[in-house]
């Protein structure tokens, strides 16, 4: 064998070994960043506030969506009330929803990040808690003034200004004495269970957090302590890395967190426990395209889920025959996937959006 042949075989062997080695490390080591996400931090910078235990993380590029051709078309047929509501909101807060918000990041954890000290802790522990972060241009002073004029108080937690309802007023409002009804001598005392207090925090210039007080306090403390974040969860990072860039609205998470209290069709509900992770993404442009993806426990579970989805699609397509205007959407529905991955994609083409807008105009 001559030197050139040896070099060629070594080159081929290197490509194979590198590919197989990378795949093996990803498979046994819980995943590696994919080609799309290699070399840079995945997702928005605000993921640093999201705790590692978050079950669902969602993101929407509001600016992209608002500037999209789809949104412009829909805006033309929106009722005037919608526009008036936005104008009123802007007058009050100084925030133009169409222009001032760049993106929104939200997450949900199945249990509170910190134990609430009050009596609601027990109740709170049984439901998920979440937080919403808004990134954009906000007039902080105006928002603080608005909050105080409505009975809020401004405080500082670890150097971060927060607005919350006045605790004194809240306590005073908690019990209410009702006058006896005619013919009744009994005085009734009604207790209001208001739940956990809401809070708004100005985390950074141009970044607002909306949520419940304990969750926001936990997020602030978590960020200050430099604890583990969602970026330390390699599976979620991989999912986000796959979605960003190709979509302007997405959500990723653990399926168990989503289906715990959801009422789903029986055949689908039977197969969902076999799903570990899910992701949903959409690109809003001239039309809308979307992709729902699930990561099953094993190949067999993924195959079964694909079969169930194909059965649903077949039924849906048969029913869609009665409404030909929706035929393009039904035709775009596609089940795909390899290995443990199951994917369902769809698309609302721009032509269909035009047709729906025209239909709405005619109806008006």
């Amino acid at each position, binding site marked *: *064998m*001559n030197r*050139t*042949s040896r070099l*060629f*075989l070594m080159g*081929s*062997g290197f*490509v*194979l070994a590198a*590919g*197989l080695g*990378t*795949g*093996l490390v*990803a*498979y046994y080591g*819980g*995943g*590696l960043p*994919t*080609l*799309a996400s290699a070399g840079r931090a995945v997702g928005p910078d605000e993921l640093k506030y999201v705790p590692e235990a978050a079950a669902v993380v969602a993101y929407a590029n509001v600016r992209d969506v608002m500037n999209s051709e789809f949104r412009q078309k829909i805006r033309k047929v929106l009722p005037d009330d919608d526009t008036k509501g936005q104008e009123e909101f802007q007058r009050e807060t100084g925030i133009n929803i169409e222009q001032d918000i760049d993106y929104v990041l939200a997450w949900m954890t199945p249990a509170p990040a910190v134990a609430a000290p009050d009596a609601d802790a027990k109740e709170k522990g049984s439901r998920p808690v979440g937080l919403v972060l808004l990134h954009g241009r906000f007039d902080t002073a105006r928002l603080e003034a608005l909050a105080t004029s409505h009975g809020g108080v401004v405080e500082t937690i670890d150097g971060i200004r927060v607005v919350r309802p006045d605790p004194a007023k809240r306590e005073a409002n908690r019990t209410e004495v009702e006058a006896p009804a005619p013919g009744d001598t009994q005085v009734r005392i009604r207790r209001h269970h208001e739940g956990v207090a809401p809070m708004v925090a100005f985390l950074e210039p141009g970044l607002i957090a909306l949520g419940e007080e304990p969750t926001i306090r936990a997020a602030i403390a978590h960020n200050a302590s430099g604890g583990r974040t969602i970026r330390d969860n390699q*599976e979620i990072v*991989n*999912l986000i890395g*796959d*979605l960003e860039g*190709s979509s302007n609205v997405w959500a990723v998470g653990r399926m168990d967190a989503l289906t715990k209290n959801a009422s789903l069709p029986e055949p689908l509900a039977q197969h969902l426990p076999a799903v570990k992770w899910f992701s949903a993404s959409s690109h809003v442009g001239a039309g809308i*395209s979307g*992709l729902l*993806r699930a*990561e099953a426990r094993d*190949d067999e579970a993924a195959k079964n889920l*694909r079969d169930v989805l*194909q*059965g649903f*699609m*077949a039924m849906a*397509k*048969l029913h869609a025959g009665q409404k030909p205007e929706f035929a*393009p959407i039904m*035709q*775009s*529905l*596609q*089940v*795909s*996937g*390899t*290995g*443990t*991955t199951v*994917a369902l*994609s*769809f*698309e609302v083409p721009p032509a269909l959006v035009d047709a729906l807008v025209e239909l709405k105009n005619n109806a008006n």
Partner: protein
Amino acid sequence: MTSAPANVPAVAPPSLPVGRRSPSLWVAAVRIFDLSLARMLWSRGTIFMALLVGLPVVLAVLVRAVQAIGGPAMRVDGQMVTGPTIFGFMVWWLYLRFIVPVLALYYGTALVADEVEDKTITYLFTRPIPRGAVLLGKFLAYFVCTVMVVLPSLMIVYFLMGLSGATLAGTFPSLLKDLGLIVLGLLAYGGLFAWVGAQFKRPLVIGLMFVFGFEQAALIIPGSLRYLTVSFYLQSIVPHAVMGEGVMSLLQSLVEQKASLGTALGMLVAIGVAFVYLAMRVIARREYVLEQ
């Protein structure tokens, strides 16, 4: 006449020099392999092979580039297709149904036919090696050559295309199956066409008729004819749902037959090994008359 003393050990008769001893089948095959590999890698077929395996890579780069610049989603029959779907489609239709059979046909039939055509087979047959070793060595060279060219190509396509909208950890097992399928395909088709090349006078025509005529027809004809094809066994273990995703494919999947994993794997290996053995027998017994 003198006789050797009883206490002097008997001297063994002088044996042939080591270099002149007829090598075993395996040693001879390895020597032929060493000789043939470089010729196969840098022959006139190299450009053909490069074009074949380069085609999917170029397609993957193009699709990826279109995705990167935010181009419209790719559609087949009006349906949007994602990266892993395109990858699965390429593995089945481009690699397993086209590149693997065509490469095996081109190189497999040429193992003996080229030597006959170039009138160099005489030089190989005059060497003190078993005739079967000539074919075995050349087949090994074909196998290593094609495997080392096709698998890296698939690996590149996977990293360009197969990960779009999927995770590396999630799709890696199916990539391993794809790589294994290609190796098995090259073995089975290669063995078959090596025998065709050794047995028949116009092997290329027969091979083309088999791959693009008989196999295509046998897969859609109901009955047992499909068991006589290589692609049936490959199709039985291909991991991708690439036969289409609509209602029609759902109906097709209800009636389609598949061999079990063990049967398919066993048959692909058996086809390759059996036909290489048959080709070795043919070359060992046949008299090749060279046209002057």
